[in-house]
């Protein structure tokens, strides 16, 4: 699995896809050391995906059937929701990259 750092590095303004079209960024991007919106979106998608996987990897033993069932049901639901949010963040990331690309072509 690709780490957050690797994913973020890929989109850094020094050489990633996001760097191709800085014109799409807003004034907030001027803050020093702030990742570009595209990089921050990619990081968000990876963080959500990783959180989902980490929770699914846990093996809690409650010692009682009903309690164990409730714990697993909650973890499954949270994990699925995080995965769904990750997919949405990834879609949005692609949309932002596309918008940046188009803006770059216009200029």
């Amino acid at each position, binding site marked *: 699995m690709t780490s957050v750092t690797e994913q973020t590095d890929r989109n850094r303004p020094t050489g990633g896809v996001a760097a191709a079209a800085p014109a*799409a960024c807003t004034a907030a991007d001027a803050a020093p050391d702030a990742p570009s919106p595209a990089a921050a979106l990619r990081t*968000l998608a990876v963080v959500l995906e990783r959180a989902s996987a980490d929770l699914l990897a846990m093996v809690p033993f*409650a010692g009682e059937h009903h*309690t164990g069932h409730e714990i697993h049901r909650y973890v499954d639901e949270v994990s699925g929701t995080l995965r769904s949010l990750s997919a*949405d963040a990834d879609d949005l990331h692609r949309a932002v990259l596309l918008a940046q690309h188009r803006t770059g072509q216009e200029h």
Partner: protein
Amino acid sequence: MGWSLPEPRPADPVLGDAASIAALGAALHRAAADVRHALDDLPPERLAVRRDRGRLAVLHARAVPVHESMDRTGARLTEHASELADAIGLARRLVDRASEAGLHVDGPTVSRRQGVHGLADPQREAGREETLRRLQRVLDAILMDLDTERRALRGALTSEHARVRRR
């Protein structure tokens, strides 16, 4: 050649692995903090395109209740792990005391050991009977407290499950 099966190992009075529950609580806390930080780094107004800002705002609105729930549930599971560890520790001490008194604990039941154990001594037998009743009351209390705690945890998990359910 004569042979016999060993006696089955008695069941522990309190089942569960407190460390694994605590680990899940910590994982939920950690994941909630990671998600919160990633969201904080990306307010919707940072996006240039209005439609993308709208989509990001929706993402925020969906994600915030999830990481808040993960935080609450992480804390609740950590608390439960502590209660479970206490119950396991108390039950282990009770098993030791029962064993010293010539008694046997199998699951939720304290009983006399089967078979003949020394000479019949009415006074000693009466003392053992009293110890058995006392230890059984203590074990019942440990199990009842844990059952109450587990019910409360299940209630909390049911509520939190409804909050994070995918729409």
